[in-house]
């Protein structure tokens, strides 16, 4: 299955996810992570990096796709949006790790995300270590809402914040996590 023929299905999942459908959003991210894995593995193997590095990049991109999803214009095609973010994250990664950016050519989305690879390995990222570095408020909010699965109002009652403050904390916390992951070398 290649990503271009998958466009209508992926776009439908994205639109449902933007409207708040959890299952669609998770399915979408799982499908995309398989495409991203094949893409990044292919690029990184050429410069002598292993599957764990590729998995780091997959997770970095998955968080970017999630935290920046408000930048997707619902009237546009979905896969070029994914490709642009994936390519940006790859270039940023190569720059950070002092690899040559010349290795990344300017392909079209359909060439790049041509295959999927569901064989995930564990990344080198550790969620607990990352969580320890964000603000206590955001950490608490993410732990309850995102990891323990409590609702926003339950969390708000539990930690004595207003529901909107909980939402803001979760949002900021995820962005902070994303930043931490992007800045590691």
């Amino acid at each position: 299955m290649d990503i271009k023929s998958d466009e209508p299905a992926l776009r439908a999942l994205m639109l449902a996810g933007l409207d708040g459908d959890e299952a669609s959003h998770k399915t979408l991210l799982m499908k995309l992570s398989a495409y991203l894995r094949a893409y990044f593995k292919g690029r990184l193997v050429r410069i002598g990096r292993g599957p764990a590095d590729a998995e780091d990049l997959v997770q970095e991109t998955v968080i970017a796709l999630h935290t920046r999803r408000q930048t997707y214009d619902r009237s546009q095609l979905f896969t070029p949006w994914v490709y642009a973010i994936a390519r940006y994250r790859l270039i940023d990664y190569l720059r950070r790790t002092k690899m040559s950016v010349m290795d990344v050519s300017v392909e079209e989305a359909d060439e790049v995300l041509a295959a999927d690879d569901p064989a995930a390995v564990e990344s080198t990222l550790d969620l607990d270590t990352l969580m320890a570095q964000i603000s206590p408020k955001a950490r608490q909010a993410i732990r309850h809402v995102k990891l323990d699965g409590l609702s926003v109002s339950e969390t708000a009652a539990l930690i004595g914040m207003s529901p909107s403050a909980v939402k803001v904390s979760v949002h900021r916390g995820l962005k902070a996590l994303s930043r931490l992951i992007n800045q590691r070398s």
Partner: protein
Amino acid sequence: MKTEELINMLGTNLEPVKGGQLRKTLLVALAVAVGAVGAICLMWNALHMPADVQGGGHFGFKAIALAFTLGLAATGARILFTCAQPGQPVRKPLMLIGLLPLMVVSAACVAPAVLDPATWSTMILGGPWGTCLICIPIFAVIPFVAFIWALRKGAPTHLTLTGAVAGLVAGALGAAAVVVHQTGHSIPLIALWYGGPIALCAVVGGILGPRLLRW
């Protein structure tokens, strides 16, 4: 960490996203930019800056200069909206933005040829060039900061280009403020002393882009 765990975490208690939020943010930045430049325009006399050293009789040139600067700002602003979203084609609108300076520069090249060579030096140096060079970049600061703030809420993937366009729009707005009070009396002057500082702003924006917009 397993990717599946991460995805489970991201998807749990998913908040719906309202459409057009990024657009609204950019519009706010644009409003702030235009407002700041408008305020500078109104304060011009209070700041004791010289208004129209040329005597104010050049309505035609003022209109051309205003059309040039505001045209640049408007086309550039449209490109900013596409730059903030990943995966949108930017090449075509960029050609559009190249068209305006090209028209003015070619007009500027033709003008000396049809005029008396004796007037060339006053034509090029006889304007408010000092004001332009200093004021345009200064006036561009607030708009530039507003654009960067908004773009950081988006996901620009071409950072140099995005920074350059932000600088260009900010510079063009700053130039429009100067045009309202002072205009040269020739097209080469408009091209040189307004186009030059705007280009400078774009270059500075391009250099700052990767630093300010990285995500």
